[in-house]
């Protein structure tokens, strides 16, 4: 694909979004199918009750918890991985935009999308651990 072609930006960004959505949806469906086959619905119902006393909610969504769950083939951990991939889709779209504007030689928009990417990653990954934020 010729990245200097003005249409290539629409094509590439459209593709990143489409594949991001398809991959994350497939992983979530896989988790749901495994869950349905396990037939273990009573435990599932208990997860719907919000419990503020457990650090990570009723289901462990910490990275360590998800990796442990994946190792045990836990369908809920598989669903969470699908959700993480879905959340990562707009992030990768911003990242790819920086590269595409760079390929176009558009320095103004490399700067704009670069700042957006920095703010986005800061907000997602850093602010949850700054005391006083999101209180």
């Amino acid at each position: 694909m010729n990245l200097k072609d003005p249409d290539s930006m629409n094509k590439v960004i459209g593709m990143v979004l489409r594949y991001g959505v398809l991959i994350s949806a497939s992983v979530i469906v896989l988790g749901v199918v495994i869950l349905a086959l396990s037939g273990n619905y009573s435990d599932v119902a208990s997860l719907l009750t919000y419990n503020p006393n457990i650090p990570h909610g009723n289901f462990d969504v910490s990275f360590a918890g998800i990796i442990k769950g994946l190792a045990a083939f836990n369908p809920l951990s598989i669903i969470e991985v699908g959700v993480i991939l879905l959340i990562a889709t707009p992030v990768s779209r911003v990242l790819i935009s920086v590269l595409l504007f760079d390929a176009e030689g558009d320095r103004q928009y490399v700067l704009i999308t670069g700042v957006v990417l920095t703010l986005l990653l800061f907000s997602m990954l850093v602010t949850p651990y700054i005391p006083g934020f999101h209180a």
Partner: protein
Amino acid sequence: MFILEFLLILFLVSIFAGVFGSIVGLGGGIVIVPVLTLFLGVDIHFAIGASIVAIIGTSSGAASTYVKDKVTNLRVGMFLELASTSGAIMGAALAAYANSAILELIFGGILLITLVPTLMKVGEDIPKSPELKGLSKRLALKGSYPEKDGSVIEYNTTRPVAGLAGTWAAGILSGLLGIGGGAFKVLSMDLAMKLPMKVSTTTSNFMIGVTAAASAGIYFERGDVNPIIVAPVAIGILIGAAIGARLLLRSRNPTVRVIFVIVLAITAVEMVLSSLGIAV
């Protein structure tokens, strides 16, 4: 309630939310949150966690079509994302100190006021294109999009700073409450920057995924993204967004505006009532 019934209802509601969310550019959270809390008895924390995922799903699912078909204005979207992401961080920082009920009342009140100019534009097909000058010219904030009859509509934009300010408000709202930013994004592009309606809603749709992702980390970390609730929401919303995107491409600007005005009115009333402690 039986768990399978619960999941099925949530799945169907999410399809509906995805269809409308992708057409008006607001993302479907305004449907998901009240259905989860009021009809399905789910805690607000889980509802907002699901809403964040619903917004990202609608945004990415519909944008893949809108971007490929060149309705979304990528440059306008990325320029305004400067304001929405920094606003989201500001909103998260404010959360500890601000009275969120009062802020919600203010934002809801502003939305109610914007109903007037938005209603006055009902019937408008293509806005009179302003002269491209200043910052808009420097940043090439113009574009063109194909209509369904095959014609290509060229347009310019104006008042980029007012657009940034409105989008910044959208970001603060998202960072503070997790919901409600999309309306301010569409209004910034429609009322301030004078983009054609379909370009405004699809560019808002493009941006809301990034704003929601900016707030996603904290909800994930807190355990509010519940896999059982989010799975049917994500799948349903993606199906709905695919349908909604096709419907929008076949619709005319005045139709999209009428749907937007109705959803805007509901959102504004919902926010004002919720700030007054009345559950909707």
